[in-house]
């Protein structure tokens, strides 16, 4: 499966990154912080060179707003950006289903050794949603 996604960026004569990746890297969507976010997720570590932080504003089980901050390479920034686009305005249940494959495909593929960036994007969103659910539960208990 990944073979197919990878096709255009395999070690052939293609550029390292697809145009989509470069577009999202150069003009990342939804960059920044949501001050009153009700779900925040941070994954990765600086030691490995990638950290992604997702801020969610969830209302009525819908992702009303999403923003990100990323420390990482071009594909990490592009993956974060694309992931936010894919979940913005979507029901939380849909956002929970977001896969790294979907992120990579939406970017017209990532080089093999950069696939972990799309995995981080998926994990960052899941972690932010779980954070939201946890605090929602707590509020409910109180």
């Amino acid at each position, binding site marked *: 499966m990944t073979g197919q996604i990878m096709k255009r960026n395999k070690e052939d004569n293609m550029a390292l990154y697809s145009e989509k990746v470069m577009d999202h890297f150069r003009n990342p969507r939804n960059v920044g912080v949501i001050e009153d976010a009700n779900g925040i997720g*941070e994954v990765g570590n600086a030691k490995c*060179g990638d*950290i992604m932080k997702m801020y969610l504003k969830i209302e009525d089980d819908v992702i009303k707003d999403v923003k990100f901050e990323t420390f990482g390479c071009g594909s990490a920034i592009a993956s974060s950006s694309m992931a936010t686009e894919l979940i913005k305005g979507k029901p939380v249940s849909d956002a929970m289903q977001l896969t790294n494959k979907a992120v990579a495909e939406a970017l017209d593929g990532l080089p093999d050794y950069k696939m972990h960036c799309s995995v981080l994007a998926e994990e960052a969103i899941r972690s932010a949603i779980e954070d939201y659910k946890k605090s929602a539960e707590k509020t409910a208990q109180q």
Partner: protein
Amino acid sequence: MIYADNAATTKMSEAAINTMISVMNDNYGNPSSLYSFGQKAKEILEEARNEVATLIGTANPREIIFTSGGSEADNQAIMSAAALGRKNGKMHIISSAFEHHAVLHTLERLKKEGFEITLLDVHEDGLVRPEEVKEAIRDDTALVTVMFANNEIGTVQPIREIGAICREKNVLFHTDAVQAIGHLPINVSEDNIDMLSASAHKFHGPKGVGFLYARKGIKLTNIIEGGAQEKGRRAGTENVPGIAAMATALKEACASLNENAEILKKHRDRLISALNEIPHSALNGDADNRLPGNVNFCFEGIEGESLLLLLDDKGIQASSGSACTSGSLDPSHVLLAIGRVHDVAHGSLRLSIGEDVSDEEIEYIISSVKEVVEYLRGFSPVWRDLMAGKTPFIL
């Protein structure tokens, strides 16, 4: 475009291109052929050998073996010393922690074959200490191999002192001078060098050509087996156009070495002082014992690949030691060797400038780097935590 990656490779000089074209057009014979057309090519080859020998300070051209580049020369030097060592029961090799992979990977192979490898510390300033070489030498040491100048951080090693120690202890000394030759004065006799590796494309010559200097009396082991070229020490029809162009390029580089170094140092030091103004940044490697054209910084809170891509968008070509640019999970072994932790090693930038860079271009590089670093920090969660005092600054 501002090409600031001359440590990766250089633009060929016009003179070298002309030499190459003229040899390809007019002297395409095989130097091994007996007829005069072949012998003319042989003449060109031997002229180049004489030239190279003279330029590195030896009167004996037989001590020069042409290779396919720096990697092959490194491999041959080390494998030869290892073969000699093995014959004499000497199975210990000393090197440094931040050698080029052409050296380190060859040593790893030898380790698997039973050699013991000591990798010397290069300290925070990126410099090997001669006294530590002395302490590391044992009765069974077959070779000391320490690079002349590091390819990432540009630090220039005390080669002459290390060479003197090796002479005194009767141990073979090899230096990978790929980054240094044509940029720093080198004299194999005065610098006490037994073997030296060089690569033409780092001094405005062609890619895929280099040479190994091996002092008379050192028996070499072939890396490439086959015909009797290079006195049986390196098989394969010689790359005559490339070799001739390499000699032209080296002659040129050595002729204007001091002049070039002056220009480069001025630009280098301007870059270093200006980039030092970026908060939480640090120069990698000693500021003085350094290649004239090398600048290497770490910027805390950002990652090197995104920095490079954005500089590329601004027309600046540079390089980084971040994991993402190496295709592995770890950042550059060179930065780790000088004690940079992973977190900041990922945020490194190497600018290796060329002699033709202008003052305006240097200022443009400075403003671009400042702008891009600030931009990337603007949405870096690492930078946010540092600024908020949640994590302590390293730099």
